[in-house]
Every structure is written in C-alpha cells, then in structure tokens.
C-alpha cells in the first residue's frame, strides 16, 4: 500500500514538474514574442516556411476529403430525397470540424515534425548555444518567429483546406453526379452563418495552431542533443499535438455549438 502511495506521489510530483516546465517555457516564449514582432520579416519568413511548404499536402487532402464527403453524403441524403442539401452539409462539416481538425493533424505531421527536428538539430549542433554566447536570445530570434508563424499559418491553411474541399464536393456532386448547381450553392449560402460557422472554425484553427506549434517547439528545444533525442522529440510532437488537437476540439465544439 505504501509503495502504491509512494508511486502515486512521485507520479504527481513528476506531472507537476512537467507542467511547471511547460508553463515556464510558455512564459519565456510569450516574453520573446514582442521582440520577434519588431522584426516582422522573421515572422513572414516563417509563415512562408511553415505555411507555404504545407500547401501541397493541404490542397491534396482537402480535395480528397471533399470528393469522399460529397459521395458519402449523397448516398445518405438521396434515400430521403434531400440531395440538394449536399452543399450545405459538406460546407458545415468542413468549416466547423474537418477543415480545422484535419488541417491541424496534417500540420502536426508535416510542419510540426519539421520544426521539432530543426530546433533539435540546432541544439545538437550547438547553434542555439552559439547564439546565446553571441548575446542573442535564441527564444526571440529562433523560437518566437516560428511560434507566431505557426499560429498565423494554421487558420489560412484551414480556410484553404475547406475551400478546396467544397470545390472537390462541387466537382463530384454537380459535375459528376448531377446535383443541381443552383441548389448546391444557394442552400449552402442560406444555411451557413459566417460568424457562427466559419468564424468559429477559424478560432478553432488558431487554437490548434497554437497547440501544434507550441508542442513542436517545446519538444525540439527540450530534446536530448542526440539522434535518438531528436527522433523521440519528433514522435512526441505528432502524438501530443494530435491528442491536444482532438481533445481541445471536443471542448471548443461543446463551448461554441452548445446552443442550436
């Protein structure tokens, strides 16, 4: 019994230590953000690096999801003679949920691992230490621009994902299946609320951008300066960021759409 209590106690202390470490890192990162904002070209370079390089996978995935969603929804709706609502359902699915969530999961796998590996290897190659010795704060110079770049990139990518997904659904539903194009667009237009649906989707993707980028930077910065350390860091980035996105998505959905 005493062994169990002891284990629980040491587990709780370890958990608090990890949380405290994350909180301290977060505070340092926030403190470094104003300095990064004073040099916007650093943030813009990261938006290009993080966002632009994720474009292909986001566009391809958005298109594929749009195709499949249109097909599945059509099969379900046609039974009830409601195939005209296809555009509305596809739009709501993408803007409220699939756009932000799938983009975030892809982002964690593509940009998140890239950030972790980059920072981890900079640490292993003593580049961060060298910067420190040059009286240059690596958190301001390296981490904060990437953090801001990730937060800005994510909603842009999510909007792009949803837009391409809707176009994909249009191709399948209207051009291939033959759903009326007027119905497809007009029901979508009347049923989608910019603030409630699109706005909340964008808010979600900002939160996901924050989670994914923070996790990626933390794992890179705290990775052991060895090949195994960097490899473990990238793996943890995908796992922790994905779980963080899914859990926070549930919480945000409950908060945003609790009233009809």
């Amino acid at each position, binding site marked *: 019994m005493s062994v169990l209590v002891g284990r629980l106690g040491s587990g709780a202390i370890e958990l608090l230590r990890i949380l405290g470490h994350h909180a301290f890192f977060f505070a340092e990162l926030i403190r470094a953000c104003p300095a990064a904002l004073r040099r916007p070209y650093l943030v813009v370079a990261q938006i290009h690096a993080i966002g632009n390089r994720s474009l292909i996978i986001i566009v391809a995935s958005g298109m594929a999801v749009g195709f499949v969603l249109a097909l599945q929804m059509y099969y379900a709706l046609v039974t009830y003679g409601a195939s005209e609502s296809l555009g509305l359902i596809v739009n709501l699915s993408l803007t409220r949920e699939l756009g932000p969530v799938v983009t975030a999961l892809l982002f964690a796998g593509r940009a998140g691992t890239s950030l972790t590996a980059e920072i981890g290897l900079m640490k292993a*190659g*003593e*580049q961060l*230490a*060298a910067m*420190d*010795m*040059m*009286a*240059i*704060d690596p958190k301001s*110079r390296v981490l904060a621009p990437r953090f801001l770049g990730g937060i800005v990139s994510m909603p842009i990518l999510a909007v792009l994902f949803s837009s391409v997904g809707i176009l994909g659904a249009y191709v399948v539903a209207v051009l291939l299946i033959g759903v009326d194009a007027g119905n497809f667009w007009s029901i979508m237009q009347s049923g989608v609320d910019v603030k409630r649906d699109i706005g909340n989707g964008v808010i979600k993707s900002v939160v996901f951008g924050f989670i994914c980028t923070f996790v990626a930077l933390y794992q890179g910065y705290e990775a052991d300066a060895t090949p195994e350390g960097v490899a473990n860091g990238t793996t943890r980035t995908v796992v922790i960021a994905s779980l963080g996105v899914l859990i926070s998505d549930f919480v945000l959905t409950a908060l945003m759409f609790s009233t009809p």
Partner: protein
Amino acid sequence: MTEAALAAPEADRSHPDALIDVEHVVFGYEGGRTILNDISMTFGRGKVTAILGGSGCGKTTLLRLIGGVYAVTQGEIRFDGKVIDARDMTQLFVLRRRLGMLFQFGALFTDLSVFENVAFPLREHTDLDEPMIRDIVLMKLNAVGLRGAANLRISEVSGGMARRIALARAIALDPELILYDEPFAGLDPISMGVAANLIRTLNDTTGATSILVSHDVEECFSICDYAYLMSSQGKVVMHGTAKQLADSEDPEVRQFIRGEPDGPIRFHYPARPLSEDFGVRA
C-alpha cells in the same frame, strides 16, 4: 596540489592586469559528480592562455562557466573585476557582447551561407548599413584566409574551413575575450598549424585576450603565453609557461605532456577486478 604545482606559487599565477579571475570555483552538474574542484586561475589581458587536460576533466565546462552558461556551485569568476552572475541575463548579455567563442565543431548556422554566418552578429547587434557589413565580413574572412569562400554554403566547406569561418564569426565584433573550445580537434596537421598561427596572430593584432582549451600539447605550447594543466579530478595540476610545464618532472605533468601510457593518469575507467568479471583466479 602536487610538488610541481607548488613550484608555481599563487603569486606567479596572479597577473597584474587580469581580464578573467577564477577564484576557488567548484562546479558539478545537477545530480552529477563534481566536475571542477576548487579551481583558481587568472587570465592576463592580451595574453593567450591554454587550459590543458585530458578528455572529461572539465575544460569545456570551465569555458562555459566563464561565458555564464552555468552558475558556479561555489567560488566566483570575475570578468574585468565584475563577478559573473549566470542568473542575471541582462548582465550576461552585456558581458557576452564583449566576448567571442569558437565552438568545438564551429556551431555554424547551416541554413546560412559563409558570408551570412559571419554577418550574423553584425546584423543582430549593430545598425551598420549593408556596404559596411560587407566590408567587415570580407575583412574578417580575409583574416582567416577564406574571403574567396564567402558565397559557399556551409555544407560545401570542410571541417577545418568551418572552424576558420566560426573564428571569423567569433571576431566579427572585435571582442575583448576570445574563448576557443578545442580548436585543433579533428584537424589535419596543416590545418592545425594554420589554426594555431591564426589564433596567435589574431590575438596579437586585435589585442584580445584568448583562452584556449585543448589537449593538443604541441600546438598549444607553440602559441600560448601561459598554460594550466588540469587533472581528471577537476583540479589544477600545474600552471606556468610552456617551458616550465615542458621541463616539469612531476609524474602527472610529464605523463600528459609526453603522452606516456603509464603513470598516475589511468587508462582504465574504475571497474571491478578482472577476476570478478571474467571468473578468472589471479
């Protein structure tokens, strides 16, 4: 302290115009063994001082303590009379503006070109215009013999060249103190000689103070004004001029300087008796 070390008394160690004073420093990493054990050293202004010792004796750790990367457990380190406080980031950054450090493997930014690596501290710390930065960078690269390599990527340069580029970056802001962490490690004999001459020449022409951490006895002795020899227990075994160390009859100093396999410095890491590990009776 050994007999030989006593031959170089405290009064000789103290330089009248010291830039760095290390006073009775004790240091160990969190939860680990003690790395530095009551170390006292003085680094004279404008001099090249070598810290010699085997791998793992705490030489690089001492450099990092001087740079304020870690806080000392006991004792103090003074930079130009001011105690270095590793917890005071504002003071540290002011101090670090006055020093340059050459890392063991260069620590160059691999996403930047050779030119941009050397320009990096200038862009970060000064408001100089582009033509001025260009001139300074090319002058620094010329000093290390790599002006012609300015446009190369870091992936295109050899290990020896990388070390010289890192040196050009370390001196970009004309620091008062230059810390060299194993500048000769992994270099071929020609590059080693070039690097040694470069360190001496740069020290003399810029008037900087240089602290050199290495285990390459010959190269260090050829350029240093003063040297400290550290033991694997993190203590100073002896200090003096290169000639004093070379002439020492102290067994530990002699073994290290001459690279003798037998002596007080053991080759084997402490282990159980062979009979226990292999089941052989002695």
